């Protein structure tokens, strides 16, 4: 599991929100298919305090799951600016890391960190629910140190 280096300021930001993270419903790529079981009943995401909320003003986490085209990254940036701080961004899948399966496509973005500040990368294509939980628990552990 690869984490970006989190410095002290980011640590303080994480500490404030980490016990109850409210996730915004921006599910629009193929990595979304493995977030659905996480919301559901078998791999329950509410036991960590995460709930899906409908409006970006009430949310403090934006999950970018999979590829984003040049058209939809502008809308994702608008939503990121509408959220109230402190906020975190989670990049799910191998497409936001380095282009993934669509590395030679003329219409998708190749690196998410050129557009949004990312706090956590979870590689996989798409990652299994156990991998998602491993990443989130590493985020929680890192912030409480």
């Amino acid at each position: 599991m690869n984490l970006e280096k989190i410095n002290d300021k980011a640590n303080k930001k994480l500490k404030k929100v980490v016990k109850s993270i409210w996730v915004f419903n921006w599910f629009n790529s193929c990595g979304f298919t493995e977030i659905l079981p996480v919301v559901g009943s078998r791999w329950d995401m509410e036991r960590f305090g995460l709930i899906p909320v409908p409006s970006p003003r009430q949310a403090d986490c934006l999950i970018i799951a999979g590829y984003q085209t040049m058209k939809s990254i502008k809308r994702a940036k608008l939503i990121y600016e509408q959220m109230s701080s402190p906020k975190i961004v989670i990049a799910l899948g191998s497409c936001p890391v380095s282009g993934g399966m669509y590395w030679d496509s003329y219409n998708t973005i190749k690196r998410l960190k050129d557009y949004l500040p990312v706090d956590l990368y979870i590689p996989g294509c798409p990652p299994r629910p156990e991998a998602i939980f491993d990443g989130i628990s590493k985020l929680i552990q890192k912030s409480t140190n």
Partner: protein
Amino acid sequence: MRNIILTLKSKFGVEILKEEKKQIWLKADKKNLLKICSLIKKNGFNFFSSLTAVDILEKNVIELIYHIWSEEKKTILNIKIKIDRERPEISSVSNVYDASQIHEREIRELFGVNFLGNPDLSSLFLEDWSGPAPFLKSFDWRNYVRKKFYSKENKRERGYFT
């Protein structure tokens, strides 16, 4: 059914390529398209199903295929039209069939075919696009992506440039 096909054959010089139980393939000429569409619309073919395009690089043509369905006769007419690849232009059928306006918009964006008479030809999927038409076989997408997104000085991306 038979007399529509015979009228088309005699008046506009249409060839029948293949005939099956519910589909008929026809081959027509580019300058007769509007008159053919007005004629078959009066005779029950009033549902515009789809519009596709095939890019044939060896013979230097783009082939457009119009799929039109009739509910009372339960048949699809597939009309194949070949146009020139250097200057792809054809008149639009959006006055006859209202639903064809958005199909022609998609073909204009992806293949570069110009439809004369279409009220709105803005792009659907590609925003801020400044390259050639992407679905043509002469578009080398790998070189385009390498130039735009990757750089040879980056150590991790050097492998893409071999």
